[in-house]
């Protein structure tokens, strides 16, 4: 059966060149880079090379990067570590209401430690207003965290605008850039952030490696204590193959980026235009243009996301949904409710996230299979019947 992978927001397939680069570090260069003897040398050099590549990708200094095991760990380290280290100044944190769970739940944990958390509202496109940030900042505020590109609705936030305010107010500004780094150009000075999280598996690198960029001079308390790896900010023997893979993915991204994001923007726009014209009662979620390059998210009315995903899966199509039924908590995604979608519309959420290997022909295949799936589910939907009867009346 044909297989179409449109779930790159979950994880991207690793680039072949990344795997080749990683391989020797499992076996030939297995040494611990803290070792003084010669076995530590090659891994040490490889990790520093990777640090250089990742730094170059976001235009940072290599010494400002802390390698972690994932984007989630980087977000945890940023929120908790910055909060703990700066609590003498104050105990107030501001985050947007559409953060990834790794930020959202880290902030919730800090509430249990006596911190106060403000959740910034977003507009119907999921945009945070810089004005709202300004209003929310108090003398006790130590940290603002706003996601760069949202993985559920694709919206890219105006960080450049927000950072003007955090700079003026002298508040540390963190962004979860897991969805953007490696997929669209990210420059920490242009964004004006003090801390930024990224993950290798979001741009054709391996799972198991992420990083936190931390501007020099920003204080942080480590979450993992032990040796002095990563400048004492993140202990534990380094996962050398994964870090090498992350570095290679960054190097490849740096070379491919303009082409990669242009290609995916074209595919995205073609896909969105056809979806909106070929399936009725179906809306785009998130911003139409301030949007992640390969990100297509819709809400199809009168049908439920999980059923659509299952029927798509039977046609070999892998996608995602923020519907309540697809979550273990059985709650509609907080991102979808934050942009003001009614529960019954949020249920019809579908997310297609495209990667650099995807093609227009695959989009055509999905557009051939999806409309009959929607029709089939609508034909058995009492909500659709109610709607048709209201139309008649």
């Amino acid at each position, binding site marked *: 059966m044909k297989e179409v992978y449109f779930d790159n927001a979950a994880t991207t397939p690793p680039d072949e060149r990344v795997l080749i680069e990683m391989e020797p570090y499992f076996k030939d260069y297995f040494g611990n880079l803290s070792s003084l003897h010669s076995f530590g040398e090659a891994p040490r050099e490889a990790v520093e090379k990777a640090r250089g590549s990742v730094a170059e990708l976001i235009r940072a200094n290599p010494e400002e990067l802390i390698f972690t095991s994932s984007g989630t760990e980087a977000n945890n380290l940023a929120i908790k570590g910055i909060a703990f280290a700066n609590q003498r100044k104050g105990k107030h944190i501001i985050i947007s209401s559409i953060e990834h769970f790794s930020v959202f739940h880290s902030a919730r944990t800090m509430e249990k430690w006596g911190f106060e958390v403000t959740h910034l509202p977003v507009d119907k496109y999921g945009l945070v207003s810089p004005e709202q940030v300004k209003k929310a900042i108090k003398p006790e505020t130590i940290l603002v965290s706003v996601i760069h590109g949202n993985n559920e609705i694709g919206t890219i936030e105006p960080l450049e605008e927000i950072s003007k305010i955090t700079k003026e107010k002298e508040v540390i500004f963190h962004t979860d850039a897991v969805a953007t780094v490696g997929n669209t150009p990210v420059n920490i000075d242009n964004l004006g952030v003090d801390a930024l999280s990224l993950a290798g598996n979001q741009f054709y690198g391996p799972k198991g490696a992420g990083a936190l960029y931390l501007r020099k001079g920003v204080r942080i308390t480590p979450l993992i204590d032990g040796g002095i790896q990563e400048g004492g900010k993140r202990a534990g023997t380094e996962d050398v193959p994964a870090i090498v893979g992350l570095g290679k993915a960054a190097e490849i991204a740096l070379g491919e980026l303009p082409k990669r994001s242009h290609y995916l923007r074209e595919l995205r726009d073609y896909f969105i235009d056809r979806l909106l014209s070929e399936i009725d009662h179906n809306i785009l979620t998130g911003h139409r243009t301030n949007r992640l390059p390969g990100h297509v998210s819709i809400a199809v009315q*009168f*049908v*439920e996301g*999980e*059923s659509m995903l*299952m029927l798509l*899966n*039977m046609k070999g199509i892998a996608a995602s949904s923020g*519907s*309540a*039924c*697809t979550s*273990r908590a*059985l709650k*509609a995604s907080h991102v979808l409710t934050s942009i003001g979608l*009614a*529960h*019954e519309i949020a*249920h019809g959420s579908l997310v297609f996230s495209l990667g650099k290997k995807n093609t227009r022909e695959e989009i055509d295949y999905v557009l051939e299979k999806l409309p009959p799936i929607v029709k089939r589910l609508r*034909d*058995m*939907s*009492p*909500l*659709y*019947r109610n709607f048709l009867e209201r139309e008649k009346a």
Partner: protein
Amino acid sequence: MAMYSDKVMDHFQNPRNVGVIEDADGIGEVGNPVCGDMMTFYIKVKDNVISDVKFQTFGCGAAIAVSSMVSEMAKGKSLDEALKISKEVVAEELGGLPAQKMHCSNLGADALHKAIDDYFSKKGKDNK
């Protein structure tokens, strides 16, 4: 979709008795849009036996499979027997349901029972 049994997948892919009975003797609706699963059951009753049953469902794979299974179990049964169809029996017949789906999606039996109640209340009115 490994979380579902083969039986659930079969009923999800080929749901039995989908549709509407325009001149139904009883109609039962359950669910709410917040939770995400809504079902409507329609029954025809002849000599205290469910002679025909149709349903419409908005919801996840489990919700659709449950509705289909309940409709199949109810068809041809006496009203008394149909009232004994429980959520547990439906889940068992389907080869089990994931824990998080037991509460939210397993509403088919409730919808059927509501349709039977509706039939009784309509019949009661006719007799008056």
